[in-house]
């Protein structure tokens, strides 16, 4: 579903991604790990189309279409969702209103009928129940005055409602205590399905205890230096990122 080949990207003239290649198939959960500054968040932002990032080389296709040529809103309509590391506050805009505008904009772009407020409310109520969301959060302004944990849960809630085909979670675990982490992970696990792919970006192995990935990739200095299954994450946890760096020249020789 997602195919990244030799992706080079920079921001502010500085090259961050240096030839990254990766494939995600429907139903797979891929974890991207790596030290700070490796380019993890850049990858998420480039895929979602955040302005300011310049792709200098390489291709990204989503279901065969050139993802890099699409506006952010078109990518969303195509089914790409980015759960933000730092969700943004929009004062005065009601959360439910925002979600309905988003869902209907996507549906319209896909040529589907828009939901009226009754249908939408029904859907929201069902999702609130599924996700164990505090219904009160829906009546507040988008992320305004939310705690760190509430913001992250709201991201997962949005994801549940928008039902993307590819969900990118950018350090969704950062700043969460263990209870909030478990809730967020449970929300994500509930959304795992054979036709949905996940890209879980994280600094710590901890999250992967709860969201068990099919593949783990280590990103260092703008490129994937090692790939494996869930065990790789545990080894990383035991040895630290320095271990990968030490092994890298050896592999290159092999």
């Amino acid at each position, binding site marked *: 579903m997602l195919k990244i080949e030799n992706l080079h990207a920079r921001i502010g003239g500085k090259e961050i991604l240096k030839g990254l290649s990766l494939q995600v198939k429907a139903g797979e959960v891929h974890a991207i790990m790596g030290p700070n500054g490796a380019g993890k968040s850049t990858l998420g932002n480039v895929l*979602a189309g955040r*302005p300011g990032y310049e792709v200098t080389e390489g291709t990204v296709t989503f279901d065969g279409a050139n993802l890099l040529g699409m*506006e952010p809103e078109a*990518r969303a309509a195509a089914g790409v969702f980015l759960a933000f590391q730092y969700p943004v506050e*929009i004062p*005065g805009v009601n959360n439910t209103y*925002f979600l309905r505008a*988003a869902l209907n*904009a*996507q549906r319209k772009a896909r040529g589907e009928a828009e939901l009226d407020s009754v249908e939408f409310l029904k859907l929201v109520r069902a999702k609130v129940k599924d996700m164990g969301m505090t219904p009160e959060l829906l009546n507040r302004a988008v992320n305004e005055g939310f705690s760190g944990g509430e913001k992250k849960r709201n991201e997962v809630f949005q994801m549940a409602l928008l039902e993307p085909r590819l969900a990118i979670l950018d350090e969704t675990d950062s700043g969460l205590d263990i209870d909030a982490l478990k809730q967020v992970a449970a929300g994500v696990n509930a959304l795992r399905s054979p036709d949905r792919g996940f890209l879980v970006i994280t600094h710590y192995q901890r999250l992967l205890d709860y969201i068990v990935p099919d593949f783990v990739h280590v990103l260092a200095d703008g490129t994937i230096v090692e790939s494996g299954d869930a065990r790789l994450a545990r080894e990383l946890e035991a040895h630290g990122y320095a271990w990968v760096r030490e092994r890298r020249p050896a592999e290159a020789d092999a």
Partner: protein
Amino acid sequence: MMATQPDELQAALSRRYDAGFVTDIEAFSLPPGLDEDTIHALSALKEEPEWMTDWRLQAYRRWLKMAPPAWAHLKLAPIDFQAISYYSAPKNRPKSLDEVDPKLLEAYDKLGVPLHERARLAGVAVDAVFDSVSVANTARDQLAKVGVIFCSMSEAIREHGDLVREYLGSVVPQGDNYFAALNSAVFSDGSFVFIPEGVRCPMELSTYFRINAGHTGQFERTLIIAEAGSMVSYLEGCTAPMRDDNQLHAAVVELVALERANIKYSTVQNWYPGDENGKGGIYNFVTKRGECRGDDSRISWTQVETGSAITWKYPSCVLRGDRSVGEFHSVALTHHHQQADTGTKMVHIGRDTKSKIVSKGISAGRSQNSYRGLVKVGKDAVNARNHTRCDSILIGKQCGSHTFPYVEVKNPTAIVEHEASTSKISDDQLFYCRSRGIGEEDAVSMIVDGFCKQVFRELPMEFAVEAKKLLEVSLEGAIG
């Protein structure tokens, strides 16, 4: 990577002004120019009593001695007052709605202000002012049953002379300022509202002002009197055709609230703002003031301003009665080359008086948007309270937003609070919306709408919807 193509940008920047049509209707206009003869002619045309003519002449003589204000944060070429026609009216003056020229009715239909009997289901009584005169006034019989007078100012001068004489100029004196003096000399028409003691006005009252003729000034005068224990909600809407030259609009609005009376005055102002190069547009120089004359009275101004090339306007409250309350809620949006210098004055005179100011300024393009507010607490205003909240939002890098708060406190028990913020629509907010599937322009409207929520809540329902749409249209092409 996501840079908008220059062509798209240009296309998006050509902003729509839906109300910019001209109605081809036979009009009678006074030739341009202003002297005492003009005033005599104007007064005669309107069949005014002598006291009115004298009042106008007195104002004119004052005006001659005054100089235009220079303190506002506005760039403005001198106005040639001799090039303006001070009176323009459709030739066939109707006596009732049935006689109104169909073209006029059509013009108001286009604006979304239907005047026909059948369309008047919304519970709103409408007075429509076309250039200098009031052309239609709906629902007046229904209002008369409860003793409410809602008619054109010209008619009030003829039919309710005593009331007009008592109150006209009692809130905004002739010599108050340059444009108020001019208006007092040459005002053509406007609305007059009288709510008798204890009456809650059974419907929203609304006046729709439209400038149609070219080279004409519109100088309307509105006077609202709410007697003890009465209540009224009044709405005002404004539009004008697109023209290359600037047109002058210098209105005066006076509100008088006696004991326990409550006046709510809402404005959606959409005068033609000029084109994207700053050519044309209305100069909107308006004096609006309400006096809480009686104890426990209340006056609330709510305005949504998106139009005019230049706006100079400070709806104010004089809180004379004890425990009286004044409120000002404002959204002012400027785009392209528009300039707005707007705000309010709250003058606390009585004891335990309260005022609240909420101002939201939105600047886009190369526009300049200033908030100017005065909170004045007199020496006898024991326990006066004011809270001011003043937020501005900038869209793009070439616009400006300015805040000029003035506070004068002469009583030590007063509490005056001021909060202010300036922010940009952040790239993060925009990207967040877009990454959820919401297009760029919709995202901007949504963010701006959220920003204005506090003020929109104060508007009557239908107006709130209109105001929201107006902002959306006005913001088209603001991002690039």
